[in-house]
């Protein structure tokens, strides 16, 4: 049986991963803003009785050679690609998504859901930690 791949474009990156690791692709809907979330967290999507974190691809620190520069302004994201790995779900904002029969070509980066999801869950940088927590008296 021929393996299928999902090609997802967002934040100046084009990633290709096995379609079997994609749980669902949904149209962009308003997300729940989450205070104190890390910079690359776009919000939370309640789906299938779960609160799924949704990430901006431009802000992810991906393995070398994955293209783009972190911090690139958000593009016209139109869909959320929901990946599944080891029982966990995570969403990624994309501008375009397509099904492909090939694992990738020039200008694309082959990746897997566990790697992408691990990149999304890396520890916060020291600069980000500590923002916004201190409560202020009146």
């Amino acid at each position, binding site marked *: 049986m021929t393996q299928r791949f999902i090609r997802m474009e967002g934040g100046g990156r084009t990633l290709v991963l096995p379609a079997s690791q994609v749980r669902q692709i949904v149209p962009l809907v308003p997300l729940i803003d989450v205070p104190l979330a890390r910079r690359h967290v776009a919000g939370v999507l309640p789906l299938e009785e779960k609160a799924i974190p949704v990430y901006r691809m431009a802000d992810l620190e991906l393995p070398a050679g994955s293209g783009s520069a972190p911090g690139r302004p958000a593009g016209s994201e139109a869909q959320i690609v929901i990946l599944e790995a080891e029982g966990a779900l995570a969403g990624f904002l994309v501008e375009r998504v397509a099904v492909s029969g090939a694992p990738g070509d020039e200008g694309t980066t082959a990746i897997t859901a566990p790697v992408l999801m691990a990149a999304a869950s890396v520890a916060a940088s020291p600069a980000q930690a*500590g923002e*916004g927590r201190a409560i202020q008296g*009146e």
Partner: protein
Amino acid sequence: MMRVMVFRLSGVAIALKLTAVERILAPSDPLPEGVGAADLAAALGLRGGLSRPEDDHRAILAGGGMALRIGVPLGTASIDPRWILPLPGYMFRQRSPFRGVIVAAAGSAGAGPAERALLLDEGELAELSRE
């Protein structure tokens, strides 16, 4: 079922267990003597939003020692605790102050004051207030 109060603070719908709240103060109500004041929006890093500071209510937390500025109350709702959708801790820059997301359609008998809200962890709230 768990009773929660839902309020809108800087544009974000937030919920808190009713048992964690002793009393709500209207914007014009004076702060009772001996009660400290704290700003939840600042603690959560919220800035701006559509609410006006002069509309903000305050919630005196159970125990009576702290009044938290909470924005505009939207009402109360009953939720099934099994329908609190937990948030992964790695989403946060620091320890999460939330128990999770509550979604009215999933967990309550009818339409609530907000379709979905972030449920504060009252234990973390007490911690915040002490900082």
